[in-house]
């Protein structure tokens, strides 16, 4: 098979194979190429975009791109204001998303997001073998063989960025009669109907919000009360843009939000009868509906990877992973994109990282690419030295502005090793859970964290050689600018001790 421009990466042997052309696969491929790691990237889709080729249905994305940030768009710190562009080393390839939006909202529409990803591919010259479906996997010596619709790919490392994309419905009797979220019809088709939505996560509330003006009645139902992001101080829970149904319920406007488990769904003729048990008290409740939609989530389409020994867990069948997103049970198999949310990290105060969204997954992908290059191919990335007298300012600047730290709070950290012989060396962005658990050389890492009151502050982790890291929380600041004299004094005092006075 020849390497045609429109059909690159023919079947054969590659050091790495990346599967998927959504944001996770594209970001991983970009950084593998940047590091000089030869690889193939294949995708079952005909074009880039992954899930953004289809979802979300009615609404704009939940991730913002604020066109007018306080720094130029090609500045790294602008990434905090633009959650949707992929990362690039070349300034001209950064911040593509805001150039494609029509200024009507800070949340891009689905077509705008799809175009954003296609433009990234075009501008960076990434090549993908589209319409090439991964179908099976087997071991091959120290590596793997990925069987695809185009033939076999042998590789030392396989990276799967296939999303959490396979519709999931509970095994409760009658759910087979319900439509899944992905099968939702046009809004007009629900005009005047009684709609029952199983599930109170964002997808359920997205549908309810989009169908408020059409449906006669909407019932949202799941066993526990919905969480709201404004209450959890994180992206955990229903986002602010989808809480109109909550207000409609409060005002008695034809929306009902039930805390109940669904025992079965009966279908007698056209309408449905949903039999529920209230979570509070267990009382039985029957709800009649014309349409039932299961907004009950998705599972990872990992095909036969579990047969290969890849351990999976939970309702989404996420793979069990290390802190560098490598399978915990099969070395050489990695995961990128939204699947990365299977790595919990520190999860302080129960707040998850944003690995399920582009603005978190893009940093995970870059960090993973560096790790794969170093671990499997011996490619070391640059580790510039830092003047001891500058370390405190650099750390506080990172805590104030670094998009990795703000997008992945308590999850990714900026690290510097404190080797007396080599001086202070920039170790880059690292998974925080790995930093605090690995016994390495003396080092410091800084992260941004939110506590249970919603207070946002830097956290410093100092590791002395051969000893576990010690946590110190720095002060919060009303405008989130941590470059104050107080912060300098607090951090300087911490570092002066561990560097024997090298850091003043």
């Amino acid at each position, binding site marked *: 098979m020849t390497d045609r421009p429109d059909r690159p990466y023919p079947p054969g042997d590659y050091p790495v194979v990346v599967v998927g052309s959504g944001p996770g696969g594209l970001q991983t491929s970009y950084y593998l190429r940047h590091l000089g790691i030869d690889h193939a990237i294949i995708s079952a889709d005909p074009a880039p975009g992954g899930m953004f080729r289809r979802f979300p249905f009615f609404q704009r994305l939940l991730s913002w791109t604020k066109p007018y940030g306080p720094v130029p768009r090609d500045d790294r710190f602008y990434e905090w204001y633009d959650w949707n562009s992929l990362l690039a080393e070349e300034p001209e390839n950064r911040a593509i998303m805001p150039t494609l939006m029509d200024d009507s909202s800070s949340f891009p529409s689905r077509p705008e997001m799809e175009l954003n990803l296609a433009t990234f591919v075009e501008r960076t010259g990434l090549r993908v073998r589209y319409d090439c479906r991964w179908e099976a996997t087997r071991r091959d010596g120290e590596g793997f063989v990925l069987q695809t619709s185009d033939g076999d790919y042998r590789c030392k490392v396989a990276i799967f960025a296939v999303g959490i994309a396979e519709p999931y419905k*509970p*095994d*409760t009797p009658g759910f087979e009669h319900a439509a899944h979220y992905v099968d939702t019809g046009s809004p007009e088709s629900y005009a005047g109907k009684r709609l029952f939505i199983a599930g109170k996560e964002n997808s359920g509330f997205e549908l309810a919000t989009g169908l408020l003006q059409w449906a006669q009645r909407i019932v949202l139902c*799941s*066993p*526990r009360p919905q969480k709201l992001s404004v209450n959890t101080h994180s992206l955990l829970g229903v986002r602010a843009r989808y809480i109109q149904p909550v207000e409609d319920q409060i005002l008695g406007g034809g929306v009902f939000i039930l*805390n*109940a*488990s669904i025992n079965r769904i009966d279908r007698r003729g056209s309408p449905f009868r949903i039999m529920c*048990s*209230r*979570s509070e008290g*267990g009382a039985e409740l029957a709800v009649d509906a014309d349409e039932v939609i299961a907004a009950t989530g998705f599972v990872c389409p990992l095909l036969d990877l*579990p047969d290969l020994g890849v*351990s*999976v*867990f*939970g*309702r989404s*069948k*996420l793979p*069990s*992973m*290390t*802190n560098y997103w490598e399978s*915990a*049970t099969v070395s050489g198999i990695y995961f990128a994109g939204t699947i990365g949310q*299977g790595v*919990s990290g*520190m*999860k*302080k*105060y*129960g*707040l*998850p990282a944003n690995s399920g969204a582009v603005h978190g997954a893009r940093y995970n992908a870059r960090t993973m690419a560096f790790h794969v290059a170093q671990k499997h191919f011996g490619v070391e990335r640059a580790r510039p030295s830092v003047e001891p007298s500058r370390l405190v300012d650099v750390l506080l600047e990172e805590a104030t502005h670094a998009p990795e730290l703000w997008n992945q709070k*308590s999850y990714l950290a900026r690290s510097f090793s404190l080797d007396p012989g080599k001086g202070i060396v920039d170790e880059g962005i690292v998974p925080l*859970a790995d930093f*605090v*658990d690995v016994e390495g050389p003396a080092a410091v890492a800084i992260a941004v*964290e939110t*506590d*249970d009151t919603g207070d946002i502050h830097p956290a410093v982790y100092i590791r002395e050689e051969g000893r*576990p890291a*010690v*946590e110190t*929380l720095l002060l919060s600041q009303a405008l989130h600018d941590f470059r104050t004299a107080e912060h300098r004094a607090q951090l300087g005092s911490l570092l002066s001790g561990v560097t024997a006075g090298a850091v003043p």
Partner: protein
Amino acid sequence: MALSATQLVDTLSGLSLFADLSRPQLEQVAHKMSEESYPVGQRILREGFTGTGFYVILDGEVAIKIDGEERARLQKGDFFGEMSILLGEPPVADVVTTRQLHVLHLGGPELEGFLRDHPPVMYRMLKTMALRLYNVSRVRD
């Protein structure tokens, strides 16, 4: 260990901590707590670190270590993390996985409301904590 919704509720019904709950209540527990997985050798609770959570082991094993010295092991059905949350103090021990771990997790700030919503769980937790205290006292004697 990927469990279906029904299998997860079945599993919970077999754990002593949740033994007094009805099926709808077990379903609510399954929705309130998140499933997580950790590789061997990872610390789940870290001595002196803030913002910890409450964990119930579904599969696997952890070791409780103080100053690097192993004091106990916990397995399926056991729970940990509640002491630190209830006292509002960072953990005084590390909890480290000795086998791949599959747990249910609840963020620290949610534990009080969870226990108030499910008094039978609170009672079972109290009994377990009393037993742990008794065992510690007996060893000291």
